[in-house]
C-alpha cells in the first residue's frame, strides 16, 4: 500500500510538473509573486510565534497585507488567463488596473493599521 501511494505521489508530482511547464510565462510570473507573498506571510507567523503577538495590529496588518496581495494576484491571474471563457471580453490592461487599484487601497489601509 505504501509503495503504491509513494509511486502515486511520484507520478502525481511528475504530471503536475509537466502540466505546469505548459503554462504561459506571464502566468508563471504571477504564480511566483503569489508564492513569494505567502512565504513572507509564513515567515511573519513564525516570527510571531517566537516573539509574541504584542502589537497585534502590526502583526495582523503585516500578515493580511501578504495574504491580501496574494489573493489579489490570484484574481488577476484568473482574469488574465486566456483559458477562462468568462473573461475573454476583459482586456488585460483593465484587469491589471483593477489589481493596482485594489493593492493601493490595501496598502493604504495597512499603513493606517500598522500603528
Amino acid at each position, binding site marked *: 500500500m505504501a509503495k503504491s501511494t509513494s509511486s502515486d*505521489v511520484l*507520478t502525481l508530482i511528475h504530471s503536475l510538473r509537466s502540466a505546469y511547464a505548459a503554462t504561459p510565462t506571464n502566468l508563471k510570473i504571477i504564480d511566483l509573486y503569489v508564492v513569494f507573498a505567502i512565504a513572507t506571510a509564513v515567515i511573519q507567523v513564525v516570527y510571531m510565534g517566537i516573539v509574541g503577538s504584542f502589537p497585534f495590529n502590526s502583526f*495582523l496588518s503585516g500578515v493580511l497585507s501578504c495574504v491580501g496581495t496574494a489573493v*489579489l494576484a490570484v484574481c488577476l491571474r*484568473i482574469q488574465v488567463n486566456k483559458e*477562462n471563457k468568462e473573461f475573454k471580453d476583459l482586456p488585460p490592461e483593465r484587469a491589471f488596473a*483593477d*489589481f493596482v487599484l485594489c493593492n493601493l487601497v490595501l496598502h493604504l489601509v495597512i499603513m493606517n*493599521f500598522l500603528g
Partner: protein
Amino acid sequence: MGAKAGSSPPVVPPPASSATSFFPSINGLKLKTKQQELLIRVSILALVYVLAFAIRLFSVLRYESMIHEFDPYFNYRTTLFLTEKGFYEFWNWFDFESWYPLGRIIGGTLYPGLMVTAALIYWTLRFLRFAVHIREVCVLTAPFFASNTTIVAYFFGKEIWDSGAGLVAAALIAICPGYISRSVAGSYDNEGVAIFALLLTFYLFVKAVNTGSLAWALASAFGYFYMVSAWGGYVFIINLVPLYVLVLLVTGRYSMRLYIAYNCMYVLGMLLAMQIRFVGFQHVQSGEHMAAMGVFFLLQVFYFLDWVKFTLNDPKLFYSFLRIALTCAISVGSLALGVGMATGYISPWTGRFYSLLDPTYAKDHIPIIASVSEHQPTAWSSFMFDFHILLFLFPAGLYFCFKRLSDATIFIVMYGLTSMYFAGVMVRLILVAAPAVCLISSIAVSATLKNLTMLIRAKNNATPMGSSKGTASLKASAKASSFDQPLPYQRNVAIALLLGAFYLLSRYAIHCTWVTSEAYSSPSIVLAARGAHGGRVIFDDYREAYFWLRKNTPADAKIMSWWDYGYQITAMGNRTVIVDNNTWNNTHIATVGRAMSSYEDEAYDIMKSLDVDYVLVVFGGVTGYSSDDINKFLWMVRIGGGVFSVIKEPEYLVNGEYRVDKGAAPKMLNCLMYKLCYYRFGEVTTEYGKPPGYDRARGVEIGNKDVKLEYLEEAFTTSNWIIRIYKVKPPKNRW
C-alpha cells in the same frame, strides 16, 4: 380686475397661438421609444425619491423639528461634539459625564458612521453658505438616506430581475412601514443610515458576482466598511455572504467570478472594518465572524483543487491528490478551530446575537437584554402592520425567483429567508427584513403585471398568422395560439385582474400612510392627547424637567435615574448621570436598581456612595402615561436582584401579582421608588368621581398615601407630574 378683464381679450390670442404652436413642438420632438421609457423611469424615480422623504415628515409638521426617543439624543450629543471639537477630539473622547464615577470611552465604543455622515452633510451645507443648525441636519438625515435607499433598491431590482421590478421595489420600500418606523424625521439613529449601507453593500456584492470585476468587489468592500462604521448589525452581512458562497459551492453554481468577488470583498472589507475602534480585532477573534474566515479558507482549497483537476486532465491521479489534500486541509482546519475555541481565543457568540439563535436564552440569563421592548419576539399583528400586502406577495416572489434561478436571485432568496427568520425572533429586526421583502414582492408584482399587460396588448390571433415572416414567427404564433385558443374571455379577465392589482397597491399606499401618521410619528419625548373637548393637549414635561435641571442645579451635580433617561439627561440637561442607555455595565445598573427598590435608609447609603445629588423618576399616575417608572419597576427589581441577592422579587409581589393599592406587599409600599413617585400624591384628585390618590395609569387608588421622606426633599415636579426630581439631603450633623 375689470381693467384686467378688459385688457385680457386682446392679450389672449397671442398666448393661445403660442400655446397651440407650443404643443406641436412637444409632439414634434418625436421621442423614440427608448427615450420615452427613460423619461418615464427617471420621472418615476424622482417622484419616489421625493415621496420617501415627504412621508417621513409627519412629526416635524405636527410638533417641531426635534430629536425623538432616547438613543438619538446620544447620537446628537456626539455629533454636536464632533462638529464643535473636530474629528481628532471625537475619536479620542473620554466622557466623564456619564456612568459616574466610571466614565465612558466614547471614542472607542461607538459606531461613528452616522455622526460622521451628519457632520459631513453639515460641513458641506455650511461651505455652500447655508446657515443650518446641526440639529436640523440630524433630524433630516434619516429621511434623506431613506430616499437614497430607494435609488439603491431600484438598481438592485434591476440587477436581480429587470428595471420594472426595480421601479416597483423603489416604490414599495419608499413607504414600507417596517422601514419607516426607524427612519422618520427626528429618529436620528444608526438604522437610518445602516439600512442604506446594508442594501448598498448587498447590491455591490451581487454586481461583483455577476460581472466578476475587481472594481465592483472593491466598491462592495467600501460599502461593507460604511456598514461596519454605522451599525452593529453588520454581523448579518459577514454571516450571510459566506453562507451564500457556501450554498453556491454546494449546489455547483460556482464560477471564477464568485472567487474574485468574495475574496476581494472579504480581505479588504475585513481590513477596513478593523479600523473602527469599537470593532477592533473581532474579525479574527470572535466566534460570530469565524464563518467568513472558514469559508475564505474553504474557497482557497476548493478552487486550488479545481485548478489542479483542470491542469492534470487525469481523473485517477486527481483522486489520489484529492484524498491527500482533503485530509490535510480538514485536519489542519479542525485542529485550528478546536484549539482556538478551547483556549478561549475565539470567543463564543455573545449574548445579544446568541439570543437570536436561542430566543429563550436572554429571558433566563440576561434580564437586561430581555427587558428591552424591541427585543421581544414578533407577533403576527406586527408583521401585518409593518408589511401589509407584502406578506403574501413575498411567497409569490419566491416562486418567481425559483423559476429563474441565477446567482442574483439565489442571493435575494437567501437574504429574504434568513431575515424573515430573524424578524420572527425579534421585533426590531423587521427593519432588516423590510428591504428583502420589498425586493422579492416587487418581482412578483412586476412579473404579474407584465404578464397581464402582455395578455391585454396581444393582438387577436385566433387565426394563425401567414407565413410571411418565416418559420420562427409561425412557431411562436402557433405556441401563442395554442395558449390563446382555450381561454375565451382572456382579455377581460386580464383587465379585471389588473384592476385588482391596482386596488391592492393603492390600499397598500393608504395603509402605509395611515400607519406612519398614527403609529410611527410620535416623538416619545413630547406626548399628545385629546382633551375633554376634543382639542389636542401637549405634554412637554420631559423637556421642562431637563431644562429645569440645566438651569437650577450646580454644574457638577450627579443625577440618578433609571437608565432609559440617561442619554436625554446628558444631552438636554447637560448634567452627569450614573447610568445611561448604553447599558455596558450591568453591575452599575443593578446598583441603581437596588437603590430604587430598597427602603429609604439603605438607598441613602447607596446614593451617598455614588455621590448622587438629585434623583429623577418618571410618574404617569396623573396623566395616565403608562411608560413610567412604576410600570418598569419590576425590571429594576429583577436586574438588581440578578446581582445583589438581597433584593428578592417575590417580596414585592402579592400572590405573584404586582399591585400598588392597599393590598400591595409592604416592601413595595415603602421602597424608594414608590415613595418618590407617590409623594404628595395622596392629596391629588386626578379624576372626577374618584378618591384622591387615584392612579390613572394603574387604575387603582394607591395603598400608602401618607409618604414621608427623611433623606430626600422634593426639588421639582413638572406641570403634569410626569417627571419628579428630588434633591438628596446632606448627612445630618453628628453631635
